[in-house]
């Protein structure tokens, strides 16, 4: 049979031939493209609608006063849990890329860092900006684990009895220290879980603060009360802090800090998945893999807590003078360095560069430069004093004037 005839002889080819021969077959052809278009439409609708439909509304929970809720949170004693935490920090820092990391880790090491990429102090500062996924697991006060999930790699900090291990899978480096106290080691790190943040926030609760229960919400599939903390004072950059508290275990599940200036949350840390069952024992069992470079922490006693960054809330800046009280407290330190900016060992170029990021201000105290983020503002005066706090620029200047 000749090929030209064969097309007409069979199945689908025949249909096509029949259609091709008829006028108006273009419509039929075009109609077939409705299938991929429909698939795209269905997919788009699914992506757009499913989260909205899955949001089954706020759970119906018995009424509770803010006082009761705070007390229950304080009594909450969750010993075992495992879960995934999404943490987003947007301090409004200028995007300095690698330079920022260099400055932060440089500050952390005090200039004498060992450079191990598995050192927790150099790694957890990464949380100060951007979006991160963490995995947390805890089994009693002696065994905890925090893992920072990265693309194709993971950084784990494991506390098991007297050992604290840091493991960076990207570079296959291990950091090891033996903690004298239990649990204290982890507390020395910047806060990472919603509970850490909530503890910091509750420290600040006094007469300068209004605490209310703001309805209920569903977080990580669990019913939760929303505790709303608002500063009564003006002059602070903190707008509101919202904490979602699990209605069964009274553990904070989500922490959101919004600035007074509005916009996206500065810190948003919440569980996306949580379980209160005992994690597998192997989770906390760590042996350095073959070929890994192990850095031992030589002197645990000499270790100072890592300097806390912007997410530190109202106080906790040890070793500094604190002016004012509550939300508008301003920490001050006299660096004694003339010229205002941290030049000296870091080099004049850096000083000049930092100067270009700030705004010059002047007042009764003299002249200085204000560095602003969406939450923390800092004033460095020309005679070397540093004022910093979760306060507006005006409050800083007032504090500096008063401190003069």
């Amino acid at each position: 049979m000749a090929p030209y005839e064969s097309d007409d002889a069979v199945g689908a080819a025949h249909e096509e031939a029949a259609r091709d021969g008829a006028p108006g077959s273009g419509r039929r052809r075009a109609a077939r493209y409705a299938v991929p278009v429909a698939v795209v439409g269905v997919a788009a609708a699914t992506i757009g609608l499913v989260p909205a439909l899955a949001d089954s509304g706020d759970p119906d929970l018995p009424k509770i006063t803010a006082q009761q809720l705070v007390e229950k949170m304080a009594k909450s004693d969750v010993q075992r849990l495992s879960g995934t935490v999404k943490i987003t920090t947007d301090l409004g820092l200028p995007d300095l890329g690698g330079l920022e990391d260099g400055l932060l880790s440089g500050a952390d090491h005090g200039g004498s860092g060992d450079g191990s990429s598995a050192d927790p102090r150099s790694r957890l500062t990464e949380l100060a900006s951007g979006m991160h996924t963490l995995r947390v697991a805890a089994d009693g006060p002696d065994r905890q684990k925090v893992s920072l999930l990265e693309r194709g790699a993971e950084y784990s900090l494991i506390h098991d009895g007297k050992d604290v291990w840091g493991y960076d899978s990207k570079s296959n480096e291990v950091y090891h220290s033996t903690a004298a106290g239990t649990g204290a080691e982890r507390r020395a790190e910047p806060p990472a879980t919603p509970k850490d943040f909530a503890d910091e926030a509750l420290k600040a609760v006094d007469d300068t603060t209004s605490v209310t229960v703001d309805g209920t919400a569903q977080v990580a599939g669990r019913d939760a009360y929303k505790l709303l903390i608002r500063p009564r004072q003006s002059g602070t950059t903190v707008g509101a802090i919202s904490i979602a508290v699990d209605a069964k275990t009274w553990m904070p599940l989500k922490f959101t800090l919004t600035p007074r200036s509005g916009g996206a949350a500065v810190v948003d840390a919440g569980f996306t998945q949580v379980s209160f069952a005992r994690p597998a024992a192997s989770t906390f069992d760590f042996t350095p893999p073959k070929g890994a470079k192990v850095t031992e922490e030589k002197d645990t006693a000499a270790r100072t807590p890592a300097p806390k960054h912007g997410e530190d809330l109202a106080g906790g800046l040890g070793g500094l003078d604190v002016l004012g009280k509550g939300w508008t407290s301003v920490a001050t330190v006299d660096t004694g360095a003339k010229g205002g900016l941290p030049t000296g060992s870091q080099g004049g170029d850096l000083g000049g560069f930092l100067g270009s990021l700030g705004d010059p201000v002047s007042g009764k105290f003299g002249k200085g430069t204000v560095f602003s983020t969406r939450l923390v503002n800092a004033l460095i005066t020309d005679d070397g004093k540093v004022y910093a706090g979760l306060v507006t620029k005006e409050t800083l200047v007032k504090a500096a004037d008063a401190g003069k």
Partner: protein
Amino acid sequence: MSRADHSTTTTTTTTTVTTTTTTTSAAAVRRPNPLWALGLLRSELVTTVRRWRTLALLGVLAAVPVLVGVAVRIETRGGGQVGGGGGEGPAFIAQITNNGLFLVFTALAATLPFFLPMAVGVVAGDAIAGEAGAGTLRYLLVAPAGRARLLFTKYATVLAFCLLATLVVAVSALAVGALLFPFGELTTISGTRIGLGEGLARALLIALVVAASLVGVAALGLFVSTLTNSGIAAMATTVGLLITVQIVDQIPQLHAVQPYLFSHYWLSFADLMRDPVYWDDLLRDLGLQALYAAVFGSAAWARFTAKDITA
């Protein structure tokens, strides 16, 4: 206005007529044996694998793990760290020295961004356009298979090639890893230890996920292949689209569209080496591949079944 009305009426009439014709002719033609498609698939598979071009592609893919393995072995001979310990290079490369099984993951991470999808793009782009270019497409349609079935068989062949190519990389890496590096218990990237048996099972699972990650690019290639009669043009377009998508995925300003690019979650296969496994991105990857397969598969069907076959 009246003209438009007229043309609509005409079309409706024609459609009715066509449908009648189709029904009659379909009844007249005997139903093809369902097993026949398997025969077609087998012959397609043999034809594809026997091509020199395919063998060369598989050879290049098999050479990548050898290259990586030997390079890491030479660099760490004195007990040094890979890349100075700075964590550069493809995922998992630093762990190869503690377990050869990690070479499988490194090799897949190194080939997945480009080599593997390029090979798939070449085979998928060639599927229909190559036949059309060589003038053999109409002979294929002589067989009582129907166009949809031929297209489906072609796609199945491309998918089989995805799996074959991935397994070639994995098996080659496993052999090189076992030869050059220690083997045994391995440390997951979460720091926990798993036995060799579970490690091998996870390696197989990772190979399957990597093969499944190529489903989207295979469907895209097949669709491009139905658009042209030139095999070379189809291959070049597919590989070009692949490069474009990879570049777009790297530009931070375009982050809004990135979650919808077929390559965006490719490296999520590394999540299988976490303990416990982190499924979120893996499921997104597989869902995205299914979506691409559905969209471009049906687009290829729409194009191919309505196309004039002139060669």
